[in-house]
């Protein structure tokens, strides 16, 4: 271990003024690069799966469909997301706190474990030894090395989470910041705590499964497996939510110089996530046997929807922060001048706003509705669920992470984002594709289309038993494919721009960040223009009328869709 006499290698970021520890930065880079590699693989599998679920094309045979669906789930939901989140933790902890990363060699060990585990799991999947889908519900059984792959990945992530907490302790002890941690760090802390719940869930699920697959444990109770699995399965997605929200606040600052309207409100919202967001894993088990209605209702509700309230609060605070920042630049006319005159040409800003909207309107609303105990009856395991989580994880988190990349490239990799015209349209291409795809998925599922199913034509089923889905199901599956293709193109463009920029982009020393100077250009995009006669004087109180209007509109949509679903439920047969 280093002693106080040995100087740690730091550089001072010329753009943000942060003191950046070299080891923390190096680890951030490695995790970010690995994340994008796994995203590329997950996206390729996504395309093939999409083209198979489109009845008109039905590309893959059943074996490769289920195999690549397993691959897509593991690589998108676990490997892409969590590698990127490790990068975010290195940033939100040591770098934002101007502090050193203690024990960097552990960080390298963690990266090796995570990479090794991911590769192991992927090899098992692609060689047909884990045709169990990423959930691997017992008694479906995979090769022991598949479970081992998951376990190694989890252990690596656990080390990085431990390093985050260690960084917080070291930064506080060495006085590298004053007072409370910055909001982005608090969001990173939220993600890290949820990651610990996730990893705990992983241990209780995959360690027994590993021993069972070896024949050491005689059997696994399938209901207990499902309960345990969803303690890693959904919390891993809640890491995504917390990290995404932290990134929203970060991007709001980087793109328009925004600051939180109320630190108290935003921090309380993150705290509600910490306390209650993980219990809603119950929403996977609402139509399962054995669990009581009381358990189902209390847990699926995120404790009386308090963690849902937290999301709705962030959905207010982030746009509000942006509105206040832009009004201060002089875009003060009426309800929405700030919105029209915002830097839509900055791909990071576009990604930020699209992420907030898609996560909230599509992902959030569908999540709360389908997570209602009784409405699960008309939703569970249908394509509605697939639409929901692509809204949250892809339209929300992945798009936000893409937006952040447009700052990681110049700030961390010290390169300019190449092909600025293409970079500008990339978030829109991806975002619009996801909107079309996810809404179509929800609609298809409303007509009964199942998830994880090779063939809704039921062409291989016995003739006397076959039945046909209504025509709208086919229409919506076609639209799903079209939207998905657009999204895959947007994703491919993101990977291409990122790889070329990092390895061959022009070197850049600094990029100006709005509140640290006069209105300047941002990486890959256009300037935030200044209104005529703008003054730099502080606005007396936060004017957030535009945001309030949009948020009440959101609430209205929520109420309507929510009530519609109760009606649809009441139309099916009585059952209890």
């Amino acid at each position, binding site marked *: 271990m280093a002693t106080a006499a040995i100087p740690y290698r730091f550089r001072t970021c010329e753009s943000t003024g942060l003191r950046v520890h070299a080891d923390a930065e190096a680890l951030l880079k490695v995790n970010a690069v690995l994340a994008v590699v796994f995203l590329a693989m997950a996206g390729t599998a996504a395309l093939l799966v999409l083209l198979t679920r489109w009845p008109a094309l039905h590309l893959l045979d059943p074996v490769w469909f289920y195999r690549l669906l397993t691959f897509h789930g593991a690589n998108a939901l676990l490997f892409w997301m969590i590698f990127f989140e490790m990068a975010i933790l290195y940033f939100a902890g040591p770098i934002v706190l101007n502090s050193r990363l203690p024990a960097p060699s552990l960080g390298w060990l963690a990266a090796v474990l995570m990479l090794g585990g991911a590769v192991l799991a992927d090899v098992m999947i692609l060689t047909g030894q884990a045709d169990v889908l990423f959930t691997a519900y017992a008694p479906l059984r995979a090769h022991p090395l598949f479970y081992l792959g998951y376990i190694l990945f989890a252990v690596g992530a656990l080390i990085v989470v431990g390093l985050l907490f260690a960084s917080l302790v070291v930064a506080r002890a060495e006085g590298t910041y004053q007072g*409370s941690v910055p909001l982005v760090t608090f969001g990173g802390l939220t993600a890290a705590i949820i990651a610990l719940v996730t990893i705990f869930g992983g241990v209780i699920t995959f360690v027994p499964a590993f021993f069972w697959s070896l024949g050491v444990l005689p059997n696994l109770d399938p209901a207990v497996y499902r309960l345990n699995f969803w303690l890693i399965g959904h919390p891993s997605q809640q890491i995504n939510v917390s990290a995404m929200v932290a990134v929203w606040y970060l991007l709001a600052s980087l793109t328009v110089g925004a600051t939180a309207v109320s630190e108290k409100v935003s921090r309380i919202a993150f705290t509600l996530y910490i306390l209650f967001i993980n219990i809603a894993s119950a929403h996977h088990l609402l139509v399962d046997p054995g669990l009581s209605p009381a358990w189902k209702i209390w847990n699926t509700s995120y404790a009386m929807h308090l963690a849902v309230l937290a999301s709705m609060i962030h959905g207010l605070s982030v746009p509000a922060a942006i509105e206040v920042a832009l009004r201060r630049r002089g875009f003060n006319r009426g309800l929405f001048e700030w919105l029209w005159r915002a830097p839509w040409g900055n791909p990071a800003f576009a990604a930020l706003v699209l992420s907030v909207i898609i996560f909230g309107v599509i992902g959030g609303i569908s999540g709360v509705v389908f997570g209602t105990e009784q409405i699960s009856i008309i939703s569970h395991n249908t394509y509605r669920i697939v639409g929901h989580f692509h809204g949250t994880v892809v339209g929300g988190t992945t798009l936000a992470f893409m937006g952040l990349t447009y700052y990681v490239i110049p700030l961390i990799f010290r390169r300019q984002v190449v092909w600025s015209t293409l970079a500008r349209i990339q978030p829109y291409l991806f975002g619009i594709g996801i909107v079309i795809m996810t809404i179509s998925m929800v609609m298809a599922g409303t007509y009964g289309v199942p998830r994880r199913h090779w063939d809704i034509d039921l062409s291989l089923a016995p003739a006397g038993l076959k039945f046909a889905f209504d025509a709208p199901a086919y229409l919506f599956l076609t639209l799903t494919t079209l939207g998905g293709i657009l999204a895959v193109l947007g994703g491919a463009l993101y990977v291409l721009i990122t790889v070329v920029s990092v390895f061959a982009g022009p070197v850049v020393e600094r990029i100006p960040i709005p509140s640290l100077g006069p209105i300047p250009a941002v990486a890959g995009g256009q300037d935030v223009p200044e209104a005529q006669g703008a003054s730099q004087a502080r606005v007396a109180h936060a004017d957030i009328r535009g945001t309030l209007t949009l948020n*009440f509109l959101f609430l209205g949509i929520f109420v309507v869709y929510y009530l519609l679903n109760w009606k649809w439920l009441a139309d099916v047969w009585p059952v209890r």
Partner: protein
Amino acid sequence: MTIHPPERIWWKPISGAERVYIAAALLFSLITFFLMPIWHFLGAQNPTMQTYRVDKAEYLQRVMAWADRYKVGELAGVPVVEPPPGGEVYLLARTFQWFPVLKLRAGQTYRVHVSSSDLVHGFSLQPLNMNFMVVPGYEYILYVTPTQKGEFGILCNEFCGLGHHLMVGKLIVD
């Protein structure tokens, strides 16, 4: 900026504008929570079910015996079974079949027993889109009242192996 520490004391009163929205969102959160227990007591569709632990092989035998007793025909090699109205109904999920084909009477409430003799499956009744999990080792009883006449399909919507999409069943109501 969100990457800078906040002011020394940031626990301050919340502005009126934020309060209004947060209050509305909180109200909506509470209403949507309480509607669940309310519907549990007053609504007609609930995933409540009565669950028992069973042996997979024993359940299989029980279903076979019951199906033999009330068999009225056959469809695509699967027995068609018509139980007494308002009585016990058994459904078995197994790779890759729903057993048997059921013939029920509209307006009657049946005790429908569901389980699997092998893996986890997903019961999905179409086009009604009613969905429940089927877990081996757990037999649950759903009190179901068919309210429409016709032929209904049963899909499996939980992956259960490479023949998952072969699982199609039928429920006839007259």
